[in-house]
């Protein structure tokens, strides 16, 4: 149990995908302007990450058995993209409210590097299936945390008198780097809390 908690906490805080591993920066900068879009996007990310891990784990086992490990990346991209499209179609038919909430963000996140990253990292870390799921859900929640924090920062930025040469993307990137630095403060916190 402690191990799963450790994986989850690490993925959320110390190994945050956006702020520590610098994966998934494009949606992080693109959709963090407003809180509700940030939350919608992050929910889609949690969903897709969990789904992608659940599907690619058995595929990876198959690939390793056939000694085709080098195909991991391309096969995963193919499978995740197709799967998310399928889920989108099914959601649209059977769960319109959920589709309205996630729908527009699902295709955006399909082939995102964070999604592919979590899947590939699960393999390099030699996680079991349950551990992989734990890690990918944690990575998604960490993404959500980063998005929510950053949308707050950005809404403050909008009311500020920013020098002209920093307006727009430059100040957003600077703010993102400061938020990222603040996450370095979490180093060692997981081991500390869990007493490892």
């Amino acid at each position, binding site marked *: 149990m402690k191990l799963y908690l450790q994986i989850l906490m690490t993925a959320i805080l110390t190994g945050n995908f956006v702020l520590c591993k610098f994966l998934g920066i494009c949606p992080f900068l693109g959709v963090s302007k407003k809180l509700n879009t940030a939350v919608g996007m992050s929910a889609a990310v949690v969903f897709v990450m969990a789904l992608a891990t659940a599907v690619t784990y058995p595929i990876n086992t198959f690939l390793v058995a*056939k*000694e*085709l490990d080098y*195909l991991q990346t*391309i*096969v995963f991209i*193919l*499978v995740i*993209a*197709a799967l998310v*499209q*399928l889920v989108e*179609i*099914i959601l*649209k*038919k*059977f769960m319109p409210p959920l589709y309205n909430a996630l729908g527009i963000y699902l295709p955006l996140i399909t082939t995102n590097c964070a999604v592919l990253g979590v899947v590939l990292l699960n393999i390099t870390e030699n996680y079991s299936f349950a551990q992989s799921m734990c890690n990918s859900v944690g990575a998604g929640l960490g993404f959500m945390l980063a998005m929510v924090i950053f949308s707050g920062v950005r*809404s403050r930025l*909008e*009311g500020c008198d920013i020098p002209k040469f920093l307006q727009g993307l430059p100040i957003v990137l600077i703010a993102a780097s400061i938020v990222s630095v603040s996450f370095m403060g979490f180093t060692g916190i997981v081991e500390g809390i869990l007493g490892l």
Partner: protein
Amino acid sequence: MNPILLAVLLLAGIGLIAAVGLTVASKVFAVPVDEKAEAIRECLPGANCGACGYSGCDGYAAALSKGETTNTALCQPGGTEASIAIGEVTGLAAGEVKPMAAVVLCQGHNVNSVQKLEYQGVMSCKMAAQVFGGPKECIYGCIGFGDCIAACEYGAISICNGIARINPYECKACKMCVKTCPKGLIQVMPLEETKAAVLCKNHDKGAATRKECKAGCIGCMKCVKACESGAIEIDRFCARVDIEKCIGCGLCHEQCPVGAIDLISLVKK
């Protein structure tokens, strides 16, 4: 088997399965779309503001398509252009949408108003309003923490000198800010017409208002007496202009001793 051939076949196989699966799924799970509603939806601005009275642009488009309403002029942000476009799609008569813009009825900026407390907390008007009615002496005035900025889809609002100001050229009169303001200070005014507006909502007695804000309405009745069209009335020590009756002559503006009445003449560029 040749490892290269195996890899190629494997990938091609997965791709084929995915393609067939997706094609079948898109046919099996196809959702019938109301094409007319989609076409109407294209004419609307997509702000989902609810100014039309429906649950957003999709709701309004569906209502028009199903014939629940025949009024094409309900969309404030889209204006007359949207109405004409909807008319072309549906064959319904296009109506004219009077251009409107929102105005903040407060002049209690940092110079005019007096602070009563140093607020340290969540920077939200809604929150601050619960702490003794806000950080300013005047409990009716603009708090200036920008809840309306967050509500505005068009970036028309900014905080200027401690109070919210709305740029009429950006404002689409969707009334999101009107619903958000905890003090109810925002009013939608017609564009391209000159109307008087009392830029104060302070209902305290005159002497108390004077202590709270330099530009507060003290309820002296001078404007009521000056108004020839009977458009102004005093409600609990604060003047109010009836927009319908106001002719924009400016007599009240000249009479006001505190400068609380202003003539608003917003002209679209």
